[in-house]
């Protein structure tokens, strides 16, 4: 049992636990925070596997951008503060059954296919990854960039507010500073709009 093994086990446990908490937590914001931990453990796994750039990219992109985006989404959709019931119409039997069956199957296949394979620790340098990326994978890389631009534009178009569109969920939002409701004071010519 080498150091990597122990480290891998630890990371796996932490990651799985936090993932479970993501899906089981009753507080949506807590779920988001647990998600951070799960993704960080994924980054740790990358490190253990020798993909340093990927680990860094994982933290940057996922933790830094995606989770923030999710938190913003939670905020904009008035995610409930505090614990709420999170069960849906399906109940728990079907999801439980499916995921356990799937896990069982996958684990079996893995154990049968790679019982004794070893992974040597051979860190891939960023330079090596970069040289491969910009030489051999140049075209898909460009496409990827283009694709990201397109999806960005798409997201903007989708989410912008049109005139006359549906009920305004923010209709009851308070947009002004409330003024204490006192009796009419004289000398105040400006009426206070509400």
């Amino acid at each position, binding site marked *: 049992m080498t150091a990597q093994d122990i480290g891998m086990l630890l990371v796996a446990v932490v990651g799985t636990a936090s993932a479970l908490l993501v899906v089981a937590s009753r507080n949506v914001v807590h779920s988001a925070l647990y998600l951070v931990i799960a993704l960080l453990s994924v980054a740790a796994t990358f490190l253990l596997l020798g993909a340093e750039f990927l680990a860094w990219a994982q933290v940057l992109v996922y933790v830094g951008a995606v989770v923030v985006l999710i938190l913003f989404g939670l905020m904009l959709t008035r995610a409930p503060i505090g614990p709420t019931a999170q069960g*849906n*119409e*399906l109940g728990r039997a*079907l*999801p439980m059954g*499916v*995921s356990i*069956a*799937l896990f069982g*199957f*996958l684990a079996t*296949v893995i154990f049968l296919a790679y019982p004794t394979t070893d992974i040597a620790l051979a860190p891939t340098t960023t330079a090596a990854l970069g040289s491969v990326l910009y030489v051999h994978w140049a075209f898909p890389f460009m496409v990827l960039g283009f694709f990201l631009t397109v999806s960005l534009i798409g997201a903007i178009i989708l989410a912008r507010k049109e005139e006359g569109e549906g009920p305004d969920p923010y209709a009851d939002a308070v947009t002004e500073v409330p003024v204490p409701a006192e009796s009419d004071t004289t000398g105040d010519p400006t009426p206070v709009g509400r």
Partner: protein
Amino acid sequence: MSEFAWLIPAVMALSALTILLFGKRMPRHGAEVGILALGVAFVLSVLVAVEVFSANVAAVAEVEEAHSVQSVWEVGGREVTLVVDAAEGGEAAEIPAGVHEFRLEQSTELSPIGGGFSIEAGTRIDGLTAMMFLLVSFVSLMVHVYSTGYMHGDPRYTWYFTLLSVFTFSMLLLVIANNLLMVVMGWELVGVCSFLLIGFWWEEKANSDAAIKALLTTKLGDVGLMVGVVGLWSEFGTFNITRIYEGVAAGDFDQGLLTFSLLALFIGAVGKSAQFPLHTWLPDAMAGPTPVSALIHAATMVTAGVFLIARLYPVYQASPTTLTVIAIIGVITLFAMGLLALVQDDVKRVLAYSTISQLGYMVAALAFSYTAGIFHLFAHGFFKALLFLGAGSLIHAVHSNNMSDMGGLRKPMPVTFATFVIGSAALAAIPPLAGFWSKDEVLAGAFGAGGYSGTLVTVLGGLGGMITAFYMARVLWLVFAGEFRGNGHPHESPAAMKWPLVVLAVPAALIGFVNLPFDFAHPRGFAAWTMFDLAYFEGHPVEFNLLLALGTTLLALLGIAAATAIYRRRAAVANDPMLRLGLFTQVLQNKYYLDQLYMGVIVRPLRDRVAPAAYWFNDHVLDRIVNLAGAGAVGLGRVTYRTVDQRGIDGVVNGIGSTANYTGNLLKFAQSGNVQLYAGALFVGVFVLGVLFAVA
């Protein structure tokens, strides 16, 4: 010339068509076309006859020369005869090779497209045909000329001449035919023409009734004719007459079937030639115009039956049974009908019964001798036509058929008187007129044959001759002697009616001399002319029996004397003793009650019982079956509609729809709108696929 003999009927057919289409517009209303055509036909007939007869005579001369005999029947004192007829005796002389009678056959075969049964349309010209041509065309010509006078002013004058032409064509067609189918064709056509002409003045019901009676009675005979023709066909496999002759000569046939067919054919002749018992139509047929009676019911149509037997003579020779039957029927006819003529008041009826009686003579004669029968047919045609036309002249003058309205017509109508006397004398067989020679040959032939039938024919034939003489003398006394008993002033007929009488009197008087039964004339005479097959040539004359001839003449003179004695006195004329002979008169006047018999036994049951029964059957049984079938079909349709279509098929179709609906209703729950359910289903599917891939 004989190659064009087919023109003779053809020109008459053309004339019929022309008169039918254009007759009304012609100056003489079609009569001129008929007479012209008939003149052409007669001239052609004479030319053909000359050619045929001379060829036949030459053939006989060659045979005689080959046997170095002066006359065919004498070879070293022995009698030699060429005839194969059982009635004649002697040996058969050999016919040298290459010598044959005149025979010309032309025919075309008519076969349907695609093969199958074919029939032929053809002509056969030989001695018999040539003789019949002469008779038919000459008598028809005389009748045509006569009719222009007799039918003058009749509203349907043109139609009359059309019918006369059609009739002449049909008779010539019958005569010229070389196969039995054409004979039947001509036979039926003359029957139709007879029907139309008897009922020419159909406005009187009696006339149309007579026409129907004639048609139906002869039709009964025609059934026999058809059966006979088909019988012969089934025996010999052909309708062609020459081939039937050959078949009979070959000897390979079934005697029973042959006799049956010949008897059936004879029944046809019985009907058409008015033999007992199918004779009842002929007296009633006198309802037609008199020239029609002269042409059709004396000289031509009624001789068609006799002609048929003569035409098939070799075939009849192969069946002695049939010949006996023929002789019996002939003799019954000749005697019984002769008696009927004694009590008639209508002059045409006397002549009608006389015709039937003479036809009996002809038929009986054919049972014993071909030449005798044919010769009597030939001679009788002329003098009977003469007598009928004379009767027509009388009727035209007196405007009545009855002899009780006539009398003393000798002075006002001398030509009619003279020609009528010649005709009557010929009919009564007074020598040397034609009737004597022909009737004598008949009786001599029967006498020579011997046997029961021969003796019967001789005896009754002789007695019949006496009766004939008696009733003809009676007619002469009642019509021409004494005082005129009718109304008006009778006068001689116009020229158109007079001259045919005169012209016809010539052959009536003299035609006997072509067939004298004496050695010097016979082999080259009528017998040679009319022979159709050298093997059947009756070179041996029907032996002239002087005693027989004298006997019959005596009987005839006796009859005349008796009639003279009775009718000389005026009292007898007014009060005819023949009509007062009690039962004898009554039976004769009722024509042996045969008409009543036929009416009661055949006509009434059919008309009043069988026909209504058949109608009832048709109405109630057949129609009911048909209606049931219809109702059944309707019911079946209804059942099919309700059960099969509505319940069955529609059930299936609707069932498919409702099944789809039902399963849809069950399946719709999969569309819950819940995305997570869809995702769940997706992952389950992934799991299943994964397992499958892993295991397989």
